[in-house]
């Protein structure tokens, strides 16, 4: 585009400012984890690693991290199975209600988290509690899986759309039955889409707070819930700062993994 010189310069400056605004808060979180001032005042009077040592020994943060990992793995496993099943059904078959199904898949993530959370909470209490199953880690996993299905579904169906059916036909012509065709041909072709979908699902679950608040039983704290409940406590502030800094640093991992996966996977978009 033949932009006039002033327009080009203005856009450059605006973009630079925009990127600065995006990164200043993240950078601040990193610096603040080293801030010796307990009330996180600015500018920091010096730098210290004391809080990192404190955070390492904080049992609350560790337990919460472990709970988050368990919930994320459970929800991802369920979402991988259910999302793949729906993707295959919607891509390979024509049936009544196909559009409705692909709409319902999106619904849990499109509606406000609080609506989904309250709905699941009421359902769990009326259906599960008479059976002797209270709210706990299990209900968190169920809640998370519900809104994680969509990311697996999107990734797998995008891959299936692009995959020529001739590979599978060739395998069958050579005498492979449907299961063998799936194991030897179809699965290797959708594998990277499954990895990408699983990665997104885990990240989504790991970051979720609203649905977790309503589906977690007493004593079950995921990392976001732990951060949220400790954020306002002055004596816990330094440890929260460190945990926040760790989470900022960890967010580089999925970016790196997504870049290594094939480019057609929706590496960035969470939806």
């Amino acid at each position: 585009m033949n932009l006039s010189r002033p327009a080009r310069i203005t856009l450059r400056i605006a973009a630079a400012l925009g990127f600065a605004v995006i990164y200043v808060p993240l950078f601040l979180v990193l610096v603040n984890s080293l801030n010796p001032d307990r009330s996180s005042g600015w500018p920091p009077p010096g730098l210290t690693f004391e809080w990192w040592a404190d955070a390492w020994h904080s049992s609350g943060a560790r337990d919460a991290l472990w709970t988050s990992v368990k919930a994320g793995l459970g929800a991802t496993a369920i979402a991988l199975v259910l999302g793949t099943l729906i993707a295959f059904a919607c891509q390979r078959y024509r049936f009544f209600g196909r559009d409705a199904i692909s709409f319902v898949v999106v619904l849990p993530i499109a509606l406000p988290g609080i609506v989904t959370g309250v709905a699941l909470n009421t359902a769990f209490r009326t259906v599960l509690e008479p059976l002797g199953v209270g709210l706990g880690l299990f209900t968190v996993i169920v809640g998370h899986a519900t809104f994680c299905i969509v990311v697996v579904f999107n990734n797998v169906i995008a891959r299936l759309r692009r995959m020529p059916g001739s590979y599978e036909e060739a395998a069958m012509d050579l005498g492979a039955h449907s299961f063998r065709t799936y194991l030897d041909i179809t699965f290797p072709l959708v594998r990277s889409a499954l990895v990408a979908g699983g990665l997104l699902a885990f990240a989504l679950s790991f970051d979720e707070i609203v649905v977790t608040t309503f589906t977690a039983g007493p004593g079950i704290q995921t990392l976001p819930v732990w951060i949220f409940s400790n954020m306002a406590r002055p004596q816990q502030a330094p440890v929260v700062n460190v945990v926040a800094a760790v989470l900022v640093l960890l967010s580089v991992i999925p970016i790196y993994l997504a870049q290594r996966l094939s480019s057609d996977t929706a590496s960035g978009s969470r939806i």
Partner: protein
Amino acid sequence: MTDTAPAAGPVRRLAGALYRRPRLQLSLLLSAPTAWLVLAYLGSLTVLFLSAFWTTDSFTSNVVKIWNTDNFTALFTTDVYRQVALRSVGVALAVTALCVLIAFPIAFYTARIAHPRWRPLLVVAILTPLWASYLVKAYAWRLILAQGGLLDWVLGPLGLKGPGYGLTATVLVLTYLWLPYMILPIHAGLEQLPDSLLDASADLGARTGRTFRSVVLPMILPSVAAGSVFTFSLSLGDYIAVQIVGGKTQLIGNLIYSNITLDLPLAAALGTVPVVIIVLYLLAVRRTGALSSL
């Protein structure tokens, strides 16, 4: 692949039997996910919204299953609820508008001005904050906006003060949180814009401003609409960021949250407000054809 000779084992017979019955295959594929999504999820949503027509015993806070529309009457006649609903929609619209304003230069620079070698790196730079925790980002802004925080420190020499916690802070933080969801679709739209159209516009004598208004803007409008679905609906349902930086500000999410334990039917009735608005918004956006490009 050693067993190329088709031995009619039980696995092969099962595979063959399934292959001849596509309807059975389909029902096997769909039974578990539909049970989960339709029965468990849609079922509990339906029960929740039906419970909006129930009422609560004011002494015991127990739900009384008597059919009435009191909650909806309260919703439409109580000033506080109306104000909060309007404020929430206003916040969601303001966040969307701010996101468009900030996202456009970033997306334009990344897609069309930056040196092609740097473009993939810039896209990664846009994506990275998406993976950083929602709560951490809101928390970072709590620190920035705090009294004596970074913003006060920056504005202090100019004789200004930061907005502190409140409605302005809420709009700022929500804008920051959902900004990448707006940059990405606009970036994708700008990337697909053919150079020939821009050249043609210039050849016909249009200057930058005119080309922007008559060519670029109409072409990326669906992308903006797609991005606005996220910024609008995510802002409308939020109550966590408001609690962190909103001070005493209340949005519709906070009202729902504060009523859940004491008056679930009222909370359910309040919950219909964002759901109805979001569905209407989705239907309106669908007319622009933006949803098919999501």
